[in-house]
């Protein structure tokens, strides 16, 4: 049944056998470091354009679905952080490819083709100055370490949701205790100064939806277990912890891109060029904060993860002298998040309009292989 669900709900390809075995080991290690509170969900590996790890229930059976394409996307973003040049363009290429693939899943081949072509253009511009990914072996090792930590984070995060379902009351008390400690730490640090950050956090918590504590718990569980297991497997602690924080930031980026893809889908029926342009430019705000206005909840979650990792890290024996984590995390905003969230819409605005989408959609309909063509452009069919 789970295979039928995945084949129906997602565009899939076969996952890599060697990685399926690796993911099974990851999952066993996560379970070994978790408190046993019942039978664990069965791990199921897929490779889909959804890039989505999820916990699902079919009848009495629970499954943790891990998506290899998610890990591959993490790896790509990690590679971009170390690119020799053109990281903002490479990030915009990645984002356009992501949106193109999502629009294709939404049945919109014309808009999908536009974003797939945009991805190629950004990539070609980045490669005009030479191969941006000609990286030394030492960097490749770091990239693998970061990706391992990130894949562990996602799996553990989903398993945490399952634990929450079984032991909500105790886990709610536990995470509330840690949140209060975090707020206390901030208050102590800001003693005598303007405590606006804590006020910001408290206001965010006050307005948070009912399942917010569950998400904070899942982040906490995921980050601590991922950094611990990755470190035990030989990944330097700074990479294990930076990997977990970056995984959170990458997932937030994917959320921005999901909003962009769905907004473009809604916009694709607009025929008036002026209205189209106005609505498209307004997406800059929507992508960042979304209609729900909950970006500060994401900011709270990120800062809480970092606090918890710092606290745990200080208690762990480490021989790491090279601590590149904070720099890597800080540079991510400049190399990826800002070019995508604040700049991509402006860059595409000049070439995107209703007439372009209409022409592309007609062109795709005229071909019997419109989907295959977009798949070739995004690289999905390779």
């Amino acid at each position, binding site marked *: 049944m789970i295979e*039928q669900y995945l084949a129906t709900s997602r565009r899939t390809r076969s996952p890599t056998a060697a990685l399926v075995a690796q993911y099974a080991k990851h999952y066993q290690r996560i379970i070994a470091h978790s408190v046993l509170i019942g039978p664990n969900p069965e791990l199921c590996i897929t490779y889909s354009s959804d890039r989505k790890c999820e916990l699902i229930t079919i009848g009495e059976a629970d499954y943790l679905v891990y998506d290899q394409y998610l890990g591959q996307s993490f790896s790509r973003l990690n590679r971009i952080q170390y690119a020799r040049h053109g990281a903002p363009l490479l990030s915009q290429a990645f984002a356009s490819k992501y949106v193109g693939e999502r629009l294709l899943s939404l049945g919109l081949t014309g808009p999908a083709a536009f974003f797939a072509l945009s991805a190629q253009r950004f990539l070609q511009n980045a490669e005009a100055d030479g191969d941006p990914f000609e990286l030394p072996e030492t960097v490749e090792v770091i990239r693998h370490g970061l990706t391992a930590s990130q894949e562990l984070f996602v799996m553990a995060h989903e398993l945490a949701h399952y634990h929450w379902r079984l032991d909500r009351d105790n886990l709610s008390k536990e995470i509330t205790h840690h949140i209060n400690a975090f707020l206390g730490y901030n208050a102590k640090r800001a003693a005598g100064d303007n405590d606006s950050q804590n006020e910001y956090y408290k206001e965010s918590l006050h307005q948070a939806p009912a399942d917010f504590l569950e998400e904070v718990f899942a982040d906490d569980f995921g980050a601590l277990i991922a950094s611990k297991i990755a470190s035990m497997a030989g990944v330097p602690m700074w990479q294990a912890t930076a990997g977990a924080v970056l995984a959170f930031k990458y997932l937030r980026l994917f959320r921005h891109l999901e909003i962009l893809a769905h907004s473009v889908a809604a916009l694709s029926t607009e025929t008036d060029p002026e209205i189209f342009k106005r609505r498209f430019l307004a997406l800059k705000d929507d992508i960042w904060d979304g209609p729900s206005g909950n970006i500060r909840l994401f900011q709270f979650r990120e800062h809480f993860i970092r606090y918890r990792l710092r606290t745990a890290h200080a208690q762990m024996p480490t021989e790491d002298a090279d601590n590149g984590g904070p720099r890597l995390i800080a540079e991510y905003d400049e190399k990826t998040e800002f070019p995508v969230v604040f700049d991509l819409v402006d860059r595409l605005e000049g070439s995107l309009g209703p007439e372009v989408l209409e022409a592309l959609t007609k062109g795709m309909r005229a071909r019997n292989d419109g989907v295959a063509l977009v798949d070739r452009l995004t690289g999905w069919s390779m």
Partner: protein
Amino acid sequence: MSQILIELDLEDEAEVRTELQNLPNDVSFIESKRFDGALALQLLAMLNTVTIPLLAKIIIERIRANRHVVIKKKGMVISGLSADNAIKVLSELAKND
């Protein structure tokens, strides 16, 4: 035999379960989270002469009430679905595999 996935609001679960209670072998209920974090109800359904009218009724009611309903086949969202063409679209999906 063709299969589709129908995504609905979780609040619709009790009503939909009642409507489909005689089809345990053809329809499975799956609970998951949507990308926006909201819990969603998904139906994994076989398409045949028995299920198509019942599924179409559920879809038409939700479209008319402006409630969330998305149909997927092989990971592709089926676009152009309306209250007027639901049965036709499902029949086409049943053939086109």
